[in-house]
């Protein structure tokens, strides 16, 4: 269903209809601080802010880990380890809110926790390089701060806030990252496979340049950070 109209028209009659259409509308809740605000406070050691981050991100963290393992007790243990790592990083000043969103940082800690888990169960030794090919792409010290900074750059590039990736390049590389082949991408975007490949290469070059400007070089340094068990 497509509804056309200008925003100004919509705004004019928005309020009365909101009240009738949403009959149980309550007084606006006093919102929690945004994650960004909580991240800044938590980085300064504010425990209450940390609890807000913990409360708001834990469900998503469980969902992410459940994509990698179905063992619920393991998921709970990894979630606990992640939060323990996050708190430790906050306490030791290893999180800089100016460099990465707190969600990105928590994700980076979780990916390291997952990597350590994989190591502990000897998955990495058993797997061939091609079997475990995800994660830990940053050169140099593979700490959470560096990984989160690299991920933040990519996040910004992918939602158009950074780099000159075109819309088509963002689509192509997003699909490619999900494992789609050039042919599949071409079918889904109704372009030729060669165009899909060109877009992918162009997008990757641009991303590599952006990462390089920040001192990151995507080399095969670590493996398996968020790969499924």
């Amino acid at each position, binding site marked *: *269903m*497509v*509804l*056309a*109209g*200008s*925003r*100004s028209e*919509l*705004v004019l*009659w*928005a309020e009365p209809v*909101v009240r009738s259409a*949403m*009959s*149980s*509308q*309550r007084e*606006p*809740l*006093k*919102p929690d601080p*945004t*994650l*960004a605000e909580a991240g800044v406070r938590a980085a300064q050691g504010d425990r*209450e802010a940390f609890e807000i981050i913990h*409360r708001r*991100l834990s*469900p*998503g963290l469980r*969902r*992410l880990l459940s994509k990698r393992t179905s063992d619920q007790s393991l998921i709970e243990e990894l979630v606990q380890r992640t939060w323990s790592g996050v708190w430790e990083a906050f306490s030791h000043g290893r999180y800089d809110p100016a460099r990465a*969103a707190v*969600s*990105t940082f*928590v*994700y*980076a800690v979780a990916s390291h926790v997952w990597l350590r888990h994989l190591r502990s169960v000897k998955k990495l030794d058993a797997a061939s390089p091609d079997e475990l*090919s*995800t994660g830990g*792409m940053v050169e140099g010290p593979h700490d959470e701060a560096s990984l989160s900074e690299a*991920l933040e750059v*990519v*996040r910004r590039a992918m*939602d*158009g*806030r950074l780099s000159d990736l*075109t*819309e088509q390049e*963002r689509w192509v590389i*997003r699909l*490619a*990252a*999900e494992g789609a082949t050039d042919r599949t991408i071409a079918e889904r975007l109704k372009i030729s496979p060669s165009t899909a490949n060109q877009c992918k290469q162009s997008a*990757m070059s641009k991303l*590599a340049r952006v990462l390089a400007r920040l001192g990151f070089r*995507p*080399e*095969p340094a670590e493996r398996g950070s*968020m790969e499924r068990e």
Partner: protein
Amino acid sequence: MRDQRILDLVQMASEAEELEQSARLTFAHTPAETGMSWRRVGVLGALAAVLTMAFMVWPRAPIPGPPQVVMNRPKPVAPKAPEQVNTGPMLLAVFHQPDARCDCVVWEEGSFANRDVREIGRSELIEAAWKARCADSSNLMLVVALDGPRELLPTDEDSARVLAACLSIQSEECGAAASCYENASEFISPSVTMVAATLATTGK
């Protein structure tokens, strides 16, 4: 190998974005407010219980009851509640012009039939909205999936436009920053679960 590393980073960044979006599913009071509220409920509940007990055990003269009348009535038939048709999360996509004007709105039910809205990822949201797009020249697409009691969701074109307008109000200050749209939760009942994603586009 370098290419695979970049693709891995893109995938991880996408998951980090999903993690942030999951934080918007909770429309919670601050702990202090919640604690105060429950304390009040607890005190009122305890007071009510004490009054009830006092009323039950208070000595009073026996009151003769009314004569008992037995009537044979047909067994009442409970009215059947209208069957709720839940078609799953609702998709709402708002396409913005470069000047922040709302270009057009797509409103669909059934795009995510039988899905838990919290499991819908950013790329799924954007792909669904992109397939149904109504504008080629917009520079920002805001996509929202909503689920909850049907009476709290847009039920027709008008209420869908209203919600789109409410969300659009945020766009001038939020731009493409998806997390900023959490302010829009003021327009949505806390009983409604919402996931949102944005895609900045270059237009044609």
